[in-house]
């Protein structure tokens, strides 16, 4: 088991290196000159040239990337052009909000999707299965920013049950978390149902039934455990779409997380911040997939050999 995790961990630096190179090259191709942005429109070209030197933008791209990597390794991702603060500080300020929102959405998605999918798989074609497949199809099709705005209109404006936007109190998280959970509820629910139906049709489940086991023992101990690996995979893979959803959701609800930081940075062409947020997002996705693979290997010894 330790060997398996170690082997997986060894591939991590390569993935992160290649991703950081891609982000670095993409951001450097941005139209517009960051030095000009910092100096302001009235600055002389000499002043712009000096800032170029200061930032190291006059050096070859390969050297710039080397410097970027060396600094990133020591925890320095540059300075925001907009706020003039270190990018790592900006990231740290906003990350906790996105993590909170993401966790809340995941708890909702797993809490609704997994039990709902198991119940649907218990009687395929039954009434609950039909209702649940309607819910899941709808929840992967709904435009989440629209659902968020409509929920805001209904629960915050009309009924006044919940706060409109921002992040002051615990009740502020309810609407954004539900909005963000919509897509993963559908995906996790569908995957749980499909995986459980697949397992419940197997011979050893019939054996368990025949020897008189109660349905709780069959579902919890025999079926769910074997159905779990595709479910865990989809939960890990989902992080990418949850991060994407968080970008939109945070903008709708003025939630001060990384997504809003990114959208604002794109508007101001604040390239060190864009670079930083993209890097954090990709590393998070890579880590989540790794975590999912390790979890599956722990659940299912057969997967360790792959």
């Amino acid at each position, binding site marked *: 088991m330790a060997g398996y995790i170690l082997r997986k961990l060894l591939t991590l630096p390569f*993935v992160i290196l*290649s*991703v950081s190179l*891609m*982000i670095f090259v*993409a*951001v450097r*191709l*941005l*139209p517009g000159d960051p030095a000009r942005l910092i100096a302001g429109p009235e600055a002389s070209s000499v002043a712009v040239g000096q800032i170029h030197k200061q930032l190291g933008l006059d050096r070859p791209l390969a050297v710039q990337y080397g410097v970027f990597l060396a600094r990133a390794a020591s925890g320095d991702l540059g300075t925001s052009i907009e706020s003039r603060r270190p990018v790592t500080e900006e990231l740290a300020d906003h990350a906790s909000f996105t993590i909170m929102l993401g966790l809340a959405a995941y708890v909702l998605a797993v809490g609704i999707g997994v039990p709902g999918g198991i119940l649907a798989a218990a009687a395929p074609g039954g009434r609950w299965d039909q209702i649940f497949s309607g819910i899941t*199809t*709808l929840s*992967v*099709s*709904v*435009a*989440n*920013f*629209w*659902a968020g*705005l*409509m929920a*805001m*209109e209904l629960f915050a*404006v009309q009924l006044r049950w919940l706060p*409109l936007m921002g992040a002051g109190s615990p009740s502020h998280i309810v609407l954004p978390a539900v909005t963000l959970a919509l897509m993963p509820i559908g995906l996790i629910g569908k995957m749980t149902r499909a995986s459980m139906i697949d397992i419940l049709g197997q011979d050893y489940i019939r054996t368990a039934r025949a020897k008189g086991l109660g349905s709780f023992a069959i579902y919890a101990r025999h079926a769910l455990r074997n159905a779990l690996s595709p479910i865990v995979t989809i939960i890990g893979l989902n*992080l*990418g*779409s949850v*991060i*994407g*959803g968080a*970008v*939109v959701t945070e*903008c*709708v609800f003025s939630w001060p997380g990384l997504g809003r930081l*990114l*959208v604002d940075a*794109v*508007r101001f*062409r604040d390239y060190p911040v*864009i670079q930083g*947020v*993209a890097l954090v*997002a*990709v590393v998070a*996705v*890579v880590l989540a*997939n790794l975590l999912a693979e390790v979890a599956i290997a722990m659940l299912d010894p057969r997967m360790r050999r792959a």
Partner: protein
Amino acid sequence: MVIWLIRHRSLSLGGALVGGLILMSLLAPVLAGGSPLAQDLYHPFQGVSPMHPFGTDEFGRDIATRVIYGARYSLIEAAASVAISCSLGTLMGLVSGAAGGLVDQAVMWVMDILFAFPGVVLALLIVSLLGPGLFNMLLAISLFSVPVFARLARNLSTALRKAEFVEAAVAMGASFPRIVLTHILPNAARPILVQCSVSAGSVILMAASLSFLGLGVQPPAPEWGAMMSDGRNYVGAYVLPSLFPGLSITLAALGFNLLGEGIRGLFDRR
């Protein structure tokens, strides 16, 4: 016929929604009264009435007219982006699966890196690089769906490469392009078709999200996401300018998702 439609609910409902979307785009000038850009500054924020079935927006533009014309944008976005990502991804996946070895590993390595980017973040990066607009947004969205098709096609292709009829073709000296095009592609077509429909749904959502964030199609164009980026400023006072465009986005995405599920159901039954 009726029984068949009820039995294939996903297929018929999805087909109806997608068909409606296509009809709306084709017949927009007939269905809508006037121009989607026509302003009437004396009558902003009108409620629902026979003259304005969906009300009017902050410039007094008829929301129903704008929603009808907006169908064109969604359809173009879905069609263009799926055409690009499906052809590119399928080609790469089929060749990489059929060739195997180093080619396979290199192509999948690139795809894995692309796949690690959360879709919206990748699209934001590309749009910030190229500037906002319909064309750049389509490019960004297409790029993010390429790995989905590449992985699917590759898995189908690696499985088919070991099939007896493909091995027979190889033994008879068929060329590599011939094997990929006439032996592997037709047998991989069905799952790829299903993926196309499902992808069209997520493309519509993604394009609307980017336009909503102000990075895709720009107002005053009657694109549904762009309409909502204007309309969201009035939520709380006037909900109609956000309600109907968003509902249309959702129904369009639902249509393609149901159609994909329906087609898959047809194939699975055999």
